[in-house]
């Protein structure tokens, strides 16, 4: 399910296109399209017609392709490149406020449902036995991912958002002893990677998304090396 986030991110380009086409603004377009995509995926997964991996592989790339076709056919003048790989220069102060709002909302949703999210992640039947309906928790996760994708699309780019969903968490796994610690350390690593990545992109005039990913991946390898050296002692 790690690539669930990636699939949602892939569907966001269609949201960008439709948002511009219908004049609703890209943020609104992204949120509606990503949510619908997430719900469609959960519904198909529930029906168990295809394996999760196959389903994600098909839907993610289909969504991305439809997005690009919609944008090209309507001759929408946007820089697809910037949406694919991120361009910090496209972020306006309005977008910044959207990001603050998104961050607060995500923190709120996660902390209020933390233990349920945790239990569903460990075992869905165990969660069911304790009165949680995993469908609601998966819908919640979809909502959270959608918000994350919408607010980070312009900085990281949709092809690289998954990297930021996975790499800081994987780095943090090496250093943490509990899920709470892991979430906190991953957040700090994420923030650090973004700051250092943006400095790097200014310094060598590289696109912001890839620079951030390179920094976070470097931290990931360093954490493995660190772990390896400690275990050797």
């Amino acid at each position, binding site marked *: 399910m790690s690539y669930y986030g990636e699939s949602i991110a892939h569907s966001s380009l269609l949201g960008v296109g439709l948002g511009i086409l219908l004049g609703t603004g890209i943020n609104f377009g992204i949120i509606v399209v990503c949510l619908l995509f997430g719900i469609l995926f959960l519904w198909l997964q529930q029906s168990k017609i295809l394996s999760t991996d196959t389903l994600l592989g098909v839907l993610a790339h289909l969504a991305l392709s439809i997005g690009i076709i919609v944008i090209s056919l309507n001759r929408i003048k946007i820089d697809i490149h910037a949406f694919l790989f991120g361009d910090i220069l496209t972020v306006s102060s309005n977008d910044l406020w959207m990001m603050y709002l998104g961050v607060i909302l995500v923190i709120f949703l996660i902390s209020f449902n933390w*233990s349920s999210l945790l*239990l569903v992640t460990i075992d869905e*039947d165990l969660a069911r*036995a*304790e009165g949680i309906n995993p469908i609601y928790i998966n819908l919640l996760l979809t909502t959270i991912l959608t918000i994350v994708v919408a607010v980070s699309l312009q900085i990281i780019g949709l092809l690289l958002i998954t990297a930021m969903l996975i790499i800081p968490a994987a780095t943090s796994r090496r250093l943490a002893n509990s899920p709470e610690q892991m979430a906190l350390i991953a957040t700090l690593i994420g923030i650090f990677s973004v700051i250092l990545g943006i400095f790097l992109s200014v310094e060598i005039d590289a696109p912001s998304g890839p620079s951030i990913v390179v920094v976070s991946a470097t931290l990931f390898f360093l954490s493995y090396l660190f772990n390896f050296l400690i275990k050797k002692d």
Partner: protein
Amino acid sequence: MKTINALISASNVSVIKHHKSILKNIDIQINKNDFITIIGPNGAGKTMLLKCLMGFYKPNFGKIQKKDKLKIGYMPQSINVINTMPMTVKNFITVRKKYDDISFKQVVSEIDIRQLVDKQLSVLSGGEMQRVLLARSLLNNPDLLVLDEPAQNLDISGQLSFYKLIQEIYSKRDISILMVSHDLHLVMVSTKKVLCLSNHICCSGKPQQVAQDPEFISMFGKDMANMMAVYQHTNHTSQIDNHLIDGEIK
């Protein structure tokens, strides 16, 4: 509609999935202090029956009634310990549970996992993991403990000590137990009632009765039936025999 005294009562429950009958006209009642063991071949619908009784799955036909505020402790066959997330045993046992320190300590000493409490889930052995799952299911002092093939991944000595533990829990706590198990000869000593399932209920009753049932013998063979008779014999002298309680299984 009469009010039910049973913890869970199912009548005429049928489940059809992909045009296949998984459960057919199941009637079962779980009463206070029952110890019911469900046996049956693979694909007999044992896990599905548990899921229906616990309310995870809505049967296509039939009715399942649960006693008000029934507390169920559920121990799954196993869980996929995800290596991508660090978690200590204590953290796992208590996540999303309302508990106090006393009941936590009580469960830890009852299941004898004191030395595991601060370990990471990912380093536990199969037997240790089963104990941890059991501890988690008991933390809220459930009225009913539901176990789905709890000793499947254990070696024979692990199975023996695990079932001994279950028996201790049953005799010390005011609890009912519903268990799916293949290790019939091992659970015979403690179980009060056996329910033989093969999509429908083939036979049910006290272990020695079931062992003589022709349907049971045709399903499990004469050897199994003889083995059960032997184990059942030793049961006559065991202490737990004196609070044998009859429930209704049709």
